[in-house]
């Protein structure tokens, strides 16, 4: 304790005229201007900028979108056949899902939310493995290290600090690995969003946060979620750049994410990207979206469909013809048929797995309980 007598006890005498000084430690820490997002979401399709886009990339995006859409319809169909416990569709959001997957290098990591099975599949994950959680035979159906895809995160925004920690660890180790973490508009309200972005900025971790603003958190519209000018504006409060992009413009999302990933990789720190998009389907197959939104709103967004606007652009520029369309559709159909077939097979289950991975080594207690279940199963088998 450094206890001094209060200033008031000083003898007054000749008081020097007080001239204002700024508080000693104060200095503007960074210029906020470059951190603020543009006022309009970035668009490439239909603008002059599209001329610079790589035709091969545009076609790749197109094929992936077609496949992604088909994946969504197929997975939804599987819920109706009882083959999936639940499916949160990304119909309408495919541009974000695909761009997120394509923006990353192989060594990078993807941190998907519960909705983002499509991004995982687009990154190369086997669709059946991607759907394990939603089929219900196990929680995570893949080894996250294999494709560097973290488990799909159901507790909202909790995956964001994981992405920060992983990116930070990679950087400490000298690996130029970037983590891309996905979250919904609703998820930005969680404390974990805040803490993750703050850690990322303080640590200058190589991480990119992609907020898919699809207008709703289940039934709650964005206006009840935030009063911010945009979600991207949150970035400035952490000292990182915020970018705003049309989330249905696949090439625009790809561009913004690729830039953010490159920036992170060269040590430039994290970026927050808000992609404006829309969830065409209900929240999940179990949800009834008519309870909270008008059909007209959905129709408006169908006119801004990510496939539609890319397809028109490609067609207009002569990059896509009937054959190209058919080839993409057929590839998607093949994927869907295979998925359907494989998902129609009952998964092989071993109830004893329940005890195998709780700890590295089974505790005595778990051994006892495993023995109990084994005995029960044997008795059942005999009966």
């Amino acid at each position, binding site marked *: 304790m450094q206890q001094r007598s209060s200033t008031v006890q000083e003898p007054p005498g000749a008081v020097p005229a007080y001239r204002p000084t700024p508080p000693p430690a104060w200095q503007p820490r960074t210029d906020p201007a470059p951190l603020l997002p543009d006022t309009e979401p970035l668009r490439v399709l239909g603008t002059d900028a599209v001329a610079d886009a790589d035709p091969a990339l545009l076609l790749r995006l197109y094929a992936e979108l077609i496949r992604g859409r088909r994946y969504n319809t197929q997975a939804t169909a599987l819920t109706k056949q009882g083959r999936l416990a*639940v499916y949160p569709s990304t119909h309408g959001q495919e541009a974000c899902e695909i761009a997120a997957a394509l923006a990353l290098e192989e060594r990078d990591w993807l941190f998907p939310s519960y909705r983002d099975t499509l991004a995982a599949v687009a990154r190369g994950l086997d669709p059946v493995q991607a759907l394990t959680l939603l089929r219900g035979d196990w929680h995570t159906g893949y080894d996250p290290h294999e494709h560097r895809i973290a488990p799909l995160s159901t507790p909202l925004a909790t995956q964001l600090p994981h992405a920060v920690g992983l990116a930070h660890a990679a950087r400490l180790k000298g690996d130029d690995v970037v983590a891309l973490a996905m979250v919904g508009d609703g998820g930005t309200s969680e404390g974990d969003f805040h803490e993750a972005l703050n850690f990322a900025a303080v640590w200058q971790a190589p991480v990119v946060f992609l907020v898919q603003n699809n207008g709703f958190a289940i039934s709650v519209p964005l206006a009840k979620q935030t009063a911010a000018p945009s979600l991207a504006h949150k970035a400035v409060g952490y000292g990182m750049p915020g970018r705003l992009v049309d989330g249905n413009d696949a090439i625009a999302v790809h561009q913004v994410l690729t830039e953010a990933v490159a920036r992170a990789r060269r040590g430039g720190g994290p970026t927050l990207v808000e992609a404006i998009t829309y969830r065409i389907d209900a929240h999940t197959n179990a949800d009834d979206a008519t309870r*909270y939104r008008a059909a007209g709103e959905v129709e408006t967004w169908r006119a801004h469909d990510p496939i539609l606007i890319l397809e028109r652009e490609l067609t207009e520029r002569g990059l896509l013809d009937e054959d190209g369309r058919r080839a993409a559709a057929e590839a998607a159909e093949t994927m869907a048929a295979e998925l359907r077939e494989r998902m129609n097979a009952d998964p092989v289950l071993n109830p004893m797995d329940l005890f195998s991975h709780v700890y590295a080594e089974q505790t005595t207690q778990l051994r006892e309980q495993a023995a109990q279940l084994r005995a029960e199963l044997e008795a059942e088998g005999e009966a």
Partner: protein
Amino acid sequence: MTTATTGPTADRTAGNAGKGGKAGKAKPATMAQALQRAMRDAMAEDPTVHVMGEDVGTLGGVFRVTDGLAKEFGEDRCTDTPLAEAGILGAAVGMAMYGLRPVVEMQFDAFAYPAFEQLISHVAKMRNRTRGAMPMPIVIRVPYGGGIGGVEHHSDSSEAYYMATPGLHVVTPATVEDAYGLLRAAIASDDPVVFLEPKRLYWSKSDWSPEAPAAVEPIGKAVVRRRGTGATLITYGPSVPVCLEAAEAAQAEGWDLEVVDLRSLVPFDDETVCASVRRTGRAVVVHESTGFGGPGAEIAARVTERCFHHLEAPVLRVAGFDIPYPPPMLERHHLPGVDRVLDAVARLQWEAGS
């Protein structure tokens, strides 16, 4: 605890389970409807009652338990909040400080965890902290337990956390009638109540009448759901129907089982439970929550302390395994079912005793 005033407390004993007390003419209602009705009646009677949470307004909650409340009472009384559980409960604390009675919905058990600090460090302690000057009449509704094929994080049984926290009441209904009565009592209580709703009983029915809800149960009273003489099954919430079924099945094997539905884990009704165990001399505690450090530990320990010389066998526990809640396709192996209850009953050392 305060008891709301819609009627005298019904005498609920054996055989009364799952049946409406009085109104024979009523058409069946679900537990979800009874809960909705409890909130509706409380909101109509008391303008300080406010419902809040994720999707509770326009949508009526993901389980439709708050269906129609926003329409009837307006969005200020039944409010869709931003998606942030600590913020929801923290705001509820402030609202309670200003004299409101917030009823908070947590969407699923595991999604109540972000609010843990607010719950433990404020909700549970504020009355004590301020020597009674700032009571916390908050109800925290938590759909809990499994059996609905929910994916990870949608089937936790988190009652052990709340039980271990002085300052909270922990209440859970097992019948449609109790859902109404206990929730009314919880909302009327001047203390915070963690109100655990067994998800898989949401659609269970009884001929309870929403139009003439009979009794509002006081919090803290267990009830004997089935009389028996051989052993006592001590249980609550989603395991009550399992135990009643097990008791029926046990009859065939010559065991006459009593079933006690705790209804309230805190406060704990030692009197009813111990009276039963002293009568039967044997007890099994049954719950879905994991066993180690779970609710059954406290129940077994306190029953043993109080009834030691009446016990012919140790109090046994049938609980979920000590594992993270399983994926949907495996959950049936985890959940305590009739067979597992009967196995435990069989281990109650019948040879040794009376």
